[in-house]
């Protein structure tokens, strides 16, 4: 049966800035595909590590949720310090990135099912929607100067870059998740 598929990048209503709204559309489109691509993942698949020191799918899902919330807090809302765990229930230590060479996955994610990760992702996105709605066009140019890191590196970014980074960060890890699923199927013979 013939069908018509329409894929337009549109401007969602409810945002002060059309530019911000279009970033949100892109983020939500990424998320729709990530959710589609992760249906059916078992706990064993979520915990599978290709080799010691490498990320699992569960770690990447937790990391996407954590990074998005942290960026929303310090980047978009301009808070002095992130407190993502209060929004998604997962801390930076819990998600385990960056993983040390030769290390196993973090214990905090052991036994967690897909619903757990879906819930974290949903909470993160609700937070992003909330902090993005009041942003105006001119806010995209607002620069944030972060405190120096332990190695002395200072980071300066604008809010437009934060929205772009949220998008490309999720897209990169989403594609890694797809690769890990493929690799596991190939390694385990489809098990």
């Amino acid at each position: 049966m013939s069908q018509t598929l329409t894929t337009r990048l549109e401007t969602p209503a409810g945002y002060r800035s059309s530019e911000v709204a279009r970033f949100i559309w892109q983020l939500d489109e990424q998320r729709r595909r990530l959710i589609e691509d992760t249906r059916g993942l078992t706990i064993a698949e979520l915990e599978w590590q290709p080799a010691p020191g490498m990320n699992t799918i569960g770690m990447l899902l937790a990391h996407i949720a954590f990074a998005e919330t942290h960026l929303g807090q310090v980047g978009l809302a301009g808070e002095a310090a992130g407190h993502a765990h209060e929004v998604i229930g997962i801390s930076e230590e819990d998600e385990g990135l960056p993983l040390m060479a030769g290390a196993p996955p973090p214990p905090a994610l052991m036994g967690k099912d897909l619903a757990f990760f879906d819930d974290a992702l949903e909470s993160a996105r609700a937070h992003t929607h909330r902090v993005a709605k009041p942003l105006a066009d001119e806010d995209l140019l607002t620069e944030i100067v972060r405190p120096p890191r332990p190695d002395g590196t200072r980071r300066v970014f604008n809010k437009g870059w934060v929205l772009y980074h949220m998008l490309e960060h999720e897209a990169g890890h989403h594609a890694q998740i797809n690769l890990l699923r493929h690799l596991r199927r190939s390694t385990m013979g489809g098990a």
Partner: protein
Amino acid sequence: MNAPRQRILQPVAGIPAPEIGLFLAQMDDQSRRLTEDTRGATVDELAWQPRAGMNTIGMLLAHNAIVEVFWISHAAVIPCDCPGVLGIGVDDDGMPIPEDGLPPGTLAGKDIAWFDDLRARARAFTYDWARRWTAKDLDRTITRQRADGEWTMNVRWILYHVLEHEAGHYGQVNLIRHQHRAAAAMAAGPRMATLAPHGAAG
């Protein structure tokens, strides 16, 4: 104290439509990082396959260039001329690779400079068209015929897709580099495996 790391997103200058200039700034940032993260990749590493039926880094780099030319041609409503723009055909990335398939012969022996050039050509093609487009082009819709019906998209979606497509495969390139390091360390023995350097992603 170290110099600050600047991450300021603003539209590329000289592009008539600022929103298109903003997409280009994002694509260029992805390309800059992909270029940085692939320095030092040898011909062997570019052709390394984690398992039969899986993509190599070289395939992903070629695929990014081909897909960019494909979609920008579509937005420009012109036939996709990959050989003319890139010097390789639209199928020469070998993707999608068949189950248990090997990398395509077209990419055998190619070094990182060759892939850099391929990606630079694709981006120059995108710039060439972006300079011709105005803000009105972003809402222009294009319909593709598919075996199962029609697919309608706007130019704004095409630019988003080129960006997120590059971002996705860039993430995979990092993961494969990490796998390659881990495999090399395993081959060198258990002690080296423990000392394998940790990648930025994957």
